Structures are given as structure tokens and as C-alpha cells.
């Protein structure tokens, strides 16, 4: 008879409130139930009460780590529904911000993974180097977390030549540091042994569960929204999609490290090939004709999908499907037959962001309610 081991909602290994019910037989895990809803803030419902301009701010606050991905996905949706053109230069700046965000997000995850594997030094080192990217983000937008860069029809702030040069300097410095971090991580025998074979995910299971982003790519699936459905300026850019072979925590680490180098290449290309001209096509957006649209964007954690039914001045219905939600469904499958000690490591290796995925609402007989898993 398996006994229940509760992990959360407040647990030292997890930084946000979330509840995992783990059934164990001795040290072995036999089943997992994910119990979400502690971070539910009702973003989708709130959306329908706000005007377009305010919605943009709200979309950014779905998640603090992939804030640009959410707000650009929302902006893209409104632009598609309202038939608003996007400035060419604005598209490139959006790509630059998205890639900077990917850099800082991957570094952040790298640190947290090292911490949950017990390698505290690597955590400190990677977060120290992450500050280089945060400096660049702060230089461009003035903010560290919510950049508020997107506007309807383009972006808010331009990147001028001297900024671009300073940015490249920092990025090259960062690249050197990243090489060193990669060397430290992959040459450390205990760290590599700790990650190898943990949280194994087969490609067929990844496909079955609809896993996205680096987790899917580490399992050997070649999926990347930037390549599959090019948006913004990604169609003109040349980049590699990094794909791993074994789908374990070590492979996810390798894929993410290599992706950071690829992101730096993309930013270099953008800075070199950015067309001159205006950064946005309009000042304010008050009214659009209305309609439906869907858009997806490759957030640092995978495909981020937004669906909009637009009214004239505000959304009538809005739906968000975050990459973390898609990836987390596979957790019970991965955790089966692991040891209890592996739980924090496996959870971290999926790069969870509970802020992102806690927005589940079900409409039943025209009545809206939050689903309770208890």
C-alpha cells in the first residue's frame, strides 16, 4: 500500500506555491498528482475587462521570466485581428529582446538546476554572469524584468548604434563566460553523474504528451516555433535548431547551453541587418474592428500560444496556453520509478514556472469557475 508524501504548497525546494502529491513505496515513487491553482490570478478574465493598452501591460505580467514572449504574442494577436501593420525595424528589435530574454532565462534555469543538484558554486557563478544580460536589458528598456517594449505596430524604444556596440561588447564577454560555465558544468564528474539518466523522456512519449521547447528538443524532437512558423524577423535570420538525443536532465542542460550561443548569433545578425526607419506604425490603439486571431511565439520554455476573440475596445475572450503547462503534464510519467531525492531535480529540469501555468478556468453551462483538483 503506497503512502502519500506531500510536497508543497510551501516547500524549500520549490520557490513558488504549488502542491505535488507523491505516492511512494519506500523510497520509490509510484504515482504523482499535480495540484495547481495557488498562483491563479485570473489573467484571462481580467483581460476581458480592460482596454487594449492596459491589456498589453497585463499580458506582460502573466509571467515575470518570459514577459516579452507573452506581451509580443498578445501584440501580434491584436495586430492580426485589427489588421495593423508592424514596422520592419520594430520586428528586429522584438527579436533582439526575445533572444536576450532567452539568454537570461536559460542562465537562470542553469543556476537553479545546479542549486537543486547541490552545486551551489555554479548557481552563484551563473547568476553572476546573468547580470551582464540584465545590464543589457536595463540599458535598452530601463527595466530588469518587465521590459514594456512592445507597442501595437512596433516597439517603444529604439536601439541606436552606440547602444548596439555596447551590447555586442557585453555579449562577447558573456559568450566567453558561458564557455567557461559550460566547461565547469560538463567537466564536473559528480554533477554530470547526478544529472545523467534522471528524468528520462522518450521521444514517443514527448510526442504523445505534446511536450514543447527545450524539453522536447532534448528528447530528440525537432520542434521550434521560430523555424516552423516564422514570425517577426525570424524568417530572414539564419539559425540552428539544437536537438539532443537522450531526453534526460543532462541533455536538457546541454541543449539549453548550446541555445544560448545560438541566441547570441541571432542577436548579432539582427544588429547587423536591422533596417532603418520608424520603430512603430501608430501611437495609440483605442478601437479595432474586431475578429479572431491566434498566434504563437517561441518563449524560452517553448511554444507560447495565445488565442483572441476581439471586441472593439477590449477582448471578448482570451486564452493562453503556456509552454510550462504543456511540459508539466508529462511530469507524472517522468517521475515514475524515480527516487524521492530526484523529485526537486526532475521538477527543475522541466523548467517550471508556476506563475505561467496557473490560469486554468473552465466554463460549464455558461458559468465560469476555477477548477479545483482536490
Amino acid at each position, binding site marked *: 500500500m503506497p503512502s502519500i508524501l506531500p510536497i508543497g504548497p510551501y516547500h524549500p525546494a520549490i520557490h513558488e506555491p504549488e502542491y505535488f502529491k507523491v505516492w511512494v513505496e519506500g523510497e520509490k515513487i509510484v504515482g504523482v498528482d499535480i495540484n495547481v491553482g495557488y498562483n491563479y490570478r485570473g489573467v484571462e478574465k481580467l483581460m476581458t475587462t480592460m482596454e487594449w493598452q492596459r491589456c498589453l501591460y497585463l499580458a506582460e505580467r502573466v509571467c515575470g*521570466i518570459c514577459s516579452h514572449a507573452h506581451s509580443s504574442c498578445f501584440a501580434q494577436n491584436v495586430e492580426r485581428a485589427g489588421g495593423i501593420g508592424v514596422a520592419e525595424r520594430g520586428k528586429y528589435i522584438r527579436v533582439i529582446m526575445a533572444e536576450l530574454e532567452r539568454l537570461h532565462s536559460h542562465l537562470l534555469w542553469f543556476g537553479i538546476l545546479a542549486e537543486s543538484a547541490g552545486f551551489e558554486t555554479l548557481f552563484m557563478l551563473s547568476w553572476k554572469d546573468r547580470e551582464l544580460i540584465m545590464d543589457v536589458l536595463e540599458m535598452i528598456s530601463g527595466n530588469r524584468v518587465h521590459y514594456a517594449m512592445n507597442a501595437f505596430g512596433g516597439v517603444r524604444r529604439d536601439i541606436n548604434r552606440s547602444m548596439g556596440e555596447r551590447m555586442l561588447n557585453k555579449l562577447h564577454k558573456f559568450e566567453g563566460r558561458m564557455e567557461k560555465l559550460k566547461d565547469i558544468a560538463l567537466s564536473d564528474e559528480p554533477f554530470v553523474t547526478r544529472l545523467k539518466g534522471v528524468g528520462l523522456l522518450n521521444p514517443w512519449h514527448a510526442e504523445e504528451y505534446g511536450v514543447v521547447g527545450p524539453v522536447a528538443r532534448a528528447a530528440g524532437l525537432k520542434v521550434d516555433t521560430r523555424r516552423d512558423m516564422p514570425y517577426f524577423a525570424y524568417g530572414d535570420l539564419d539559425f540552428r535548431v539544437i536537438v539532443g538525443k537522450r531526453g534526460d536532465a543532462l541533455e536538457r542542460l546541454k541543449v539549453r547551453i548550446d541555445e544560448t550561443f545560438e541566441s547570441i548569433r541571432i542577436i548579432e545578425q539582427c544588429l547587423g541587418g536591422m533596417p532603418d526607419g520608424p520603430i512603430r506604425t501608430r501611437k495609440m490603439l483605442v478601437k479595432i474592428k474586431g475578429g479572431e486571431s491566434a498566434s504563437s511565439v517561441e518563449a524560452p520554455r517553448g511554444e507560447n500560444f495565445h488565442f483572441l476573440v476581439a471586441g472593439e475596445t477590449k477582448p471578448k475572450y482570451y486564452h493562453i496556453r503556456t509552454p510550462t503547462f504543456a511540459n508539466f503534464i508529462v511530469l507524472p510519467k517522468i517521475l515514475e520509478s524515480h527516487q524521492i531525492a530526484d523529485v526537486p531535480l526532475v521538477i527543475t529540469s522541466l523548467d517550471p514556472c508556476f*506563475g505561467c501555468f496557473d490560469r486554468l478556468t473552465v466554463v460549464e453551462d455558461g458559468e465560469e469557475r476555477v477548477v479545483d483538483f482536490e
Partner: protein
Amino acid sequence: MFHLSLGTCNGCEIEVLTLMTPRFDAERWGVRFVKSPRHADVVLLTGCGTERALKRSKRVLDQIPEDKVVVAVGACACSGGIFKQGHKPPLKADIYVAGCPPKPEAMLEGIMEAVRKCCSKD
């Protein structure tokens, strides 16, 4: 110091975690994050206070020794922020750090104020 998240967008959480890393390093003032609420003198609150999180967090807050200093970090914890509609008013705090999210420097100032308050209580 104990960090309690009441349902956020993760922005404040990440910035709170940054406080421990080499650039900001709150440990200079003898401030350390503890894993158990029973060991804490200062609580950092983030988040707008969702219904389920508030229910559970009450038990966590009760475990903290009585003369604790509560620091509310971020617009959500201070006033409800952008998620104000439909949520209960956030918990009362001794020190408020505004911003969405606040700069780590601002958080450090709040924490130093909390350290001062703790010292004056002894």
C-alpha cells in the same frame, strides 16, 4: 529571512533570489534566507494573495515567531497591483517596497530597514 509567495507572476521571486547572488549579496548584512518559517525573523511577502495561497500561507505565517517584521515586496503585495480586481486585500506589512517588480537595490533598502527594526526590538 523567509520568503513567502502568495501567487505572483514570478518576477518578484526571481528578483528576490537575485538578492543572494554575488552582485547584490544581502548576506553582507548578515541576512540569510532560511528554509523553515520557524527560524525566521523577517518575512518577505510577494504576490497579490490568491484565495488558495492565502488559505495555506496562514498556517506558514503562524509558525513564524511573534515579533516578526513583515516586508511587502512589489506592487502586488503592497496594494494588489494589476491583479487587484477579484482578490482579497493583501496582508498588512511593516515595510512596503513598491515597484513592479522593485529594483534589487530598493529591496535591499527595505531589508536593511527591517534589520534596523529587528535590532531596535532587542
